[in-house]
């Protein structure tokens, strides 16, 4: 598993990372631009989704249609997204067309046309995106949960709200793009089949600029309410629960990951066993680790019919609290095997690797090798996980429910 890492930093500070993979014909890439939801000015929530749409409506010498045709012509599977810290644009394609894809993205990032008449449909689609969330309570509960759990504005949802989007102007959006697409704060990552030297030469032509002042740390304030209920006459109560834990950079990170895996790694993990297998309370039940650079949490979701909602919440929080009371060797072993196996299975996908190295660099300022992660997982023991859990008890739970019935949060 001794994979190679390519790295080059342009004079303006833009970081280029690459992980070559054997036996694949694809290349996946992404530009992590520092204009994510938490970086948006007050009153502009949802603007990053407008940005993401608008920049693809024509760039350089191509209008919207020509640009789209060019991207389709090289068979690119686009994969753009907005999260708390970044707007990411990129995708995956057959390696032979990578150079052309990067040229086109050079235009999209550096010379988007941002034509006035293309703004309105971009904004309207973002508004429709907010409304569409009403018809997807499971997704909505997750977004609100992060908003309530993380200190403001870290958990701000990329979707935003209708009022802000209605008030958004092309001028403000142009300014957001100008500030947010700061190349000195940008990470580019590629994985799969590629030639790094030729990418570096290409980027020296298309992305080398005067250094810009970097954005610095995000300022954040207080957290919101502990319990939020949104009434909805649906079939289920959708329950989101989140509690704090350590970030990736913390010494206890691997103890935390193993603990979460004991709780909800595989089908033999505690939540699935207690909530679904023994009591039949839910179909969907699971908890996973979620991290930002500044804070991290364990995010749990369960969907259940109204009369079972209270019991479901109570069983879940009891399982969280019971974890520090004791864990068997078998449980730890299964959790470790599961984490290591997931790591290697993901390493076969060029998209996962490109995302993985970029996110490591953002969170840690370096890229961990698979060997390092594997060793650190192997080093955890029943004792190390229990000591961690006893020193970091789950005391506060942020809870969000959407559905026909409220629950009582103890």
């Amino acid at each position, binding site marked *: 598993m001794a994979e190679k890492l390519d790295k080059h930093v342009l004079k303006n500070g833009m970081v280029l990372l690459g992980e070559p993979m054997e036996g694949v*014909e694809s290349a996946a890439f992404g530009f992590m631009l520092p204009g994510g939801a938490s970086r948006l000015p007050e009153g502009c929530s949802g603007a990053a989704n407008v940005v993401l749409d608008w920049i693809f409506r024509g760039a350089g010498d191509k209008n919207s249609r020509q640009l789209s045709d060019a991207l389709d012509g090289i068979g690119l599977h*686009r994969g753009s997204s907005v999260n708390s810290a970044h707007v990411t644009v990129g995708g995956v394609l057959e390696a032979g067309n990578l150079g052309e894809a990067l040229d086109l993205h050079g235009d999209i990032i550096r010379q988007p046309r941002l034509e006035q008449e293309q703004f309105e449909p971009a904004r309207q689609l973002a508004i429709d995106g907010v409304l569409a969330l009403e018809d997807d309570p499971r997704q909505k509960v997750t977004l609100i949960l992060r908003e309530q759990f993380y200190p403001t504005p870290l958990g701000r949802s990329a979707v935003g709200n209708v009022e802000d989007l209605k008030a958004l102007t092309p001028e403000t959006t142009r300014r957001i793009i100008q500030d947010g697409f700061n190349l000195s704060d940008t990470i580019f990552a590629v994985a799969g089949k590629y030639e790094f030297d030729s990418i570096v030469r290409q980027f020296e032509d298309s992305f080398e600029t005067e250094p810009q002042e970097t954005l610095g740390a995000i300022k954040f304030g207080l957290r919101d309410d502990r319990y939020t209920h949104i009434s909805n006459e649906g079939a*289920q109560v959708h329950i989101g629960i989140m509690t704090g834990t350590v970030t990736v950079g913390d010494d206890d990170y691997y103890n935390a990951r193993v603990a979460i895996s004991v709780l909800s790694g595989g089908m033999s993990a505690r939540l699935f066993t207690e909530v679904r297998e023994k009591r*039949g309370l839910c179909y969907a039940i699971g908890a996973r680790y979620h991290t930002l650079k500044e804070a991290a949490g364990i995010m749990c979701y369960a*969907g259940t019919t109204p009369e079972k909602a209270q019991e479901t919440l109570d069983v879940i929080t009891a399982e969280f609290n019971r974890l520090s009371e004791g864990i068997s060797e078998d449980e730890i072993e299964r959790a470790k095997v599961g984490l290591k196996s997931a790591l*290697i*299975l993901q390493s*076969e996908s060029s998209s996962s690797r490109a995302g993985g190295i970029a996110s490591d660099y953002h969170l840690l300022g370096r890229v961990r090798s698979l060997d390092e992660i594997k060793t650190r997982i192997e080093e955890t023991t029943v004792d190390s996980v229990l000591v961690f859990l006893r020193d970091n008890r789950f005391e506060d739970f942020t809870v969000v429910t959407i559905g026909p019935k409220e629950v009582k949060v103890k």
Partner: protein
Amino acid sequence: MEFKSKILENGLAVIGEVNKSAKSAAVGFFVKTGSRDESEQINGVSHFLEHMLFKGTEKLGPIEVNEAFDRTGAQFNAFTSEENTVYYAAVLPEYLIEVTRLWIELMRPALRDDDFNLEKNVIKEEIAMYKDLPSFDVMDRCRKLHFEGHPCSKSVLGSEQSIDGMTAEQMRSYFCSRYSPNNMVVGCAGNFDWEQICSAIEAACGQWSKQDADRKLEHFGGSKKKERVEKANMALEHICLMSAGVPAQDPRRFAASLLAMIIGDDVGSRFFWELVDKALAEAATMQFGAMDGTGVFCSYILCGSDNVSKVLEVVAKVFKDIEESGITQEELTKAKNKLLSEVVIKNELPMGRLIDLGFNWTYLREYRPVGQDVEDIKSVTGEQVNSLIEQFKPGDFTQLSTGPARQE
């Protein structure tokens, strides 16, 4: 890549594609059974049975099954459709034999009454969950309307009533008639030792007895009915359109996939430019689903209530234009490039490869290397796509919409 296969005397097909350079291996059991093989009374039994396989055997209880899977670090699951039930696991190569042995055991489940009664709750929760997902619900309802009178009209999940009324005995009898070795394929892909896996499967499954497990196939043109369902708690209009297409056994399935991509890929398609780019709809996509003996073009459109009539006008025009003038060469080239990269990328992972490998054997009794699919996609001509349009008239569709109550 090396392909291996062996058909056991009882009809069980064992197939594998060995790729020694892969870091993982995947195994799958493909059972040719789904909601179309059920009677009305036991609708939902295939999917419920899929859940029940995880409840173990005479020797293994449900908790032990989950622990046994997790000890291998497997990424494993199962899914049920109208016509297939598939169980799969992806693991590091050294665990493939262990996880395969576990699946083999589970393929002869205990189907205990207690487990059956407890799992009913989980199934009903799953039905409730999908009711809260209008994008899924609308397709389920549209399939029912489109296939009216055809076995494929049955819902995969069943209804609360059909699940409530079902007995464990009915499930056991369905199991005996459908999980017959001659109605199943076991496939492996990635880095594994063929001799080891094949002999383990042969030793354990060779004694399974064979039953008749037929399925009557008939092509179906679709009901072409139009219906709308109102729901109080919805915000947007969800529209599903279905029309007939070629079956999975038909070589024109690649042309059909390209046609769906030209009309309704999520970017760069006719729907995209006429509906999404102009912000008339938040989403507008079309996919082609090749099925056993039939096929379906399925479109999904999500838009605001105010835009519904305009959207339907535009949709009608998109279909009218394509029926009158056909597709362009540029559209075909773009669609081919997108489909080719999709096929290549998906098949890079043993897990992705396994699915194609298993379904090709299920439907065609044929091994198709990835390169053969690539060649077949490249060789599709504009005339072939246009003749599909002429024969199947995608504009002549069944339509089902769900949305909020209309204001008068």
